[in-house]
């Protein structure tokens, strides 16, 4: 799915969380959204998900403007917050079943995919255990399994690497995201872990004080003349300097 952000502004009383954000993300990309705390990463993700309304600007998915009422577009993406919106009395299976039904994807054959996903995420024995009894990482995995079962055109994932998932869960996320991107789906995730962003993304988008400061592939970012010597570490050191001075 192609994403176009056209002059997105989100103003909170004392400051602009997003300031004239313009960005185009081509289909089939894995994009890491990086920024200091309070930079506007999650606000941007929420704008894309429709839960936060931009004050100005347009969000365009595959050439069509997205507003909250566009259910045809809404069904093509899924937002996975850092604390997923799951009912804790439910089991992973109930949650996945409900999400599939809400996306109207409960066709025959989907159960094989669910078995496969649960096995991959080590949740098969816990399929009928209430989510309240599971650890934070396991709950996140259950929500991720629902996302993977739906397999939308656009994944909006908040902090997958700080979600409490074990290495197996993180690897499953990476593997599935790569497979999805290869099929033309778009994966946009936030993270604070520079190494992860550098290694696992086609493009890195650096946001600072609501402004996109860089949108480059990780390799190109290193060559950026503004980026001092090399790597995302230097960019963030530079941002930190600006912040303090």
């Amino acid at each position: 799915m192609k994403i176009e952000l056209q002059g997105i502004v989100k103003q909170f009383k004392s400051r602009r969380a997003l300031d004239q954000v313009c960005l185009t993300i081509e289909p089939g990309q894995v994009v890491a959204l990086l920024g200091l705390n309070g930079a506007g990463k999650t606000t941007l993700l929420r704008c894309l998900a429709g839960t936060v309304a931009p004050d100005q600007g347009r969000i365009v998915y595959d050439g069509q403007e997205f507003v909250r009422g566009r259910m045809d577009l809404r069904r093509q993406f899924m937002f996975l917050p850092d604390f997923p919106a799951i009912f804790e009395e439910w089991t992973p299976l109930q949650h996945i079943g409900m999400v599939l039904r809400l996306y109207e994807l409960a066709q025959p054959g989907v159960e094989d995919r669910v078995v496969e996903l649960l096995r991959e995420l080590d949740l098969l024995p816990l399929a009928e255990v209430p989510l309240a009894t599971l650890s934070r990482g396991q709950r996140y995995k259950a929500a991720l399994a629902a996302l993977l079962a739906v397999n939308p055109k656009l994944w909006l994932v908040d902090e997958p690497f700080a979600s409490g998932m074990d290495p197996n869960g993180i690897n499953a996320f990476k593997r599935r995201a790569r497979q999805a991107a290869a099929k033309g789906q778009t994966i946009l995730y936030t993270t604070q872990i520079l190494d992860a962003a550098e290694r696992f993304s086609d493009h890195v988008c650096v946001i600072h004080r609501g402004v996109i400061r860089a949108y480059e592939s990780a390799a190109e970012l290193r060559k950026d003349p503004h980026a001092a010597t090399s790597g995302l570490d230097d960019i963030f050191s530079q941002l930190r300097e600006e912040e303090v001075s």
Partner: protein
Amino acid sequence: MTLRGWSFEAAARKRVRAEVFASESLRQEYRLARAAAKGRPSMPPGVYRLLFMGFLVLLAVESKEITVENVVAIILLWTLGTMFYQASHLYAALYDEDGVIVYDYLPISDTAIFRLQWRRFLRGSGWPIFDFAVAYSVLLFQAGLTWRAVTGGLAFGVVQWVFIMATAVCLVAFSRPNHFTPLALPFQFAALVILSVGYNLSSVCTWLEGLAWSVPPVGWILQSLGVSEIGGALQRLWPGLASAVVLALSPIAFGRVRRAFLLSEPTHTSDGRIPEILEFGERLAMSPEDARAAIQRRQFLAGLNWDEAGLVERHFSRLLNARERTVAEFMLAAEPGWTLRLRRMSPFLLLALVMPWLFRHRWLPNAELFLPVWGLMGAAAIIRTARGFEVPPGGGLRSPYYANYPIEFWELARVALKINLASTFVLLLFFLVLYAASGGFQVRAIEDGLRWAAVAMIAQPLLVIAAISPRTNDAQDRGFAWSALALLLVLLGGGVAFFMAAKWWVVALGGLLAAGASVLGLVLYGRSFNRSRFDLVPTRRTDAD
């Protein structure tokens, strides 16, 4: 135990300020954050209390519409409501507060935690002194005292507070906590009704005044003031006896509450999970083969079988199409359980029907007094809050559950409307029977009943907005707020005409106007929602990630 190191905090504050003021950008951030914090609209709860009590005093001093019976009735109902409320507050302080969970994982003894939470409870529970000081001052003023009414009122307020605390401790020690809040609300609501229209309910107030002698310490205070006329020797003894029993029981109850707290295991693990439930979860874990077989049966995709869920559910589900059933299941987040709840409440409902009829000709002058109390209980029995409108747990700003999934506004609105309508119909049916039982089948009563039924219908679209709006920041748009205000004024105007007018065509016009405003409100709200005119997070403009 000392939770705060004041000297450390002062030193740290000094250092932080020095750092902040040394940097221009940090200074600017600080100024913005300070301005933002000042700009947050918040009304301290004490203001509402002042307004409430100010209204009571005004009524007493200026309008002379309030009588001794009115004040006694209000004191009685407010006492009962406050007792249950404080019991709920104490239970929450000991077991439900976030702080308790945190303390469980710090090297603090249970005894210290109990002492800390008990003191915190006491500190937050002083407001009844003010309430009852005002109420008793008004009572003494009505009884003919002038400036001494204030000091006397204050003394009685303190006595009343002591008894309320003692009763709250007894309630926590000897009864089940889940009933405290549902029992507090009807009494407090009834007190507000008496405060607002008590001058039209003199016989009800007289009846309540007659009951007041049985509730400690109200009866004892009234007896000592010579306000209540009590007949037999036992009745004369009762207020003092009941007060003594409560006071004697309270140390025993306190010890019991304390022991129960000290013996209880931490209710949560470090990530908020409950050990008992963890064990339950472990028992439910199954082998991969069994899990695979369960998934292959596709039951997890089938959803709720509404036909087998119960009588009410079966009939209700006929109002919904397949998609709406899915949305309803998501929003309710559990089996509705309406039939089960109705069955559990049936003895109380039966009692509600029988009591007014039994006592109508004896000592209960207005059987309709039961209507709000039983009505609230009936509503609590039937209506279940749709969990989908709530915000999931977790840190930071959260959107409600529904906002994270592809559920369209009109799907939400239709499901919420149908659930509310079904509940309203059941309630109306119940009220109708209750009216019959209380002998209210007169033309005026039927007219009033029908008007209330119409109001219940007219309010339905607004109830949908009321479910969505609190978890949004919709009111921050000035245009939106002005439109809502205009619609509310039309709604109120129509509503007043609907209730007050004598001519039928004015009544009809008022009703239509109110209904139109209500429906238009929902339509406009839906359009704003669908066009992303506001956030689905309860942000103030100062909040951002």
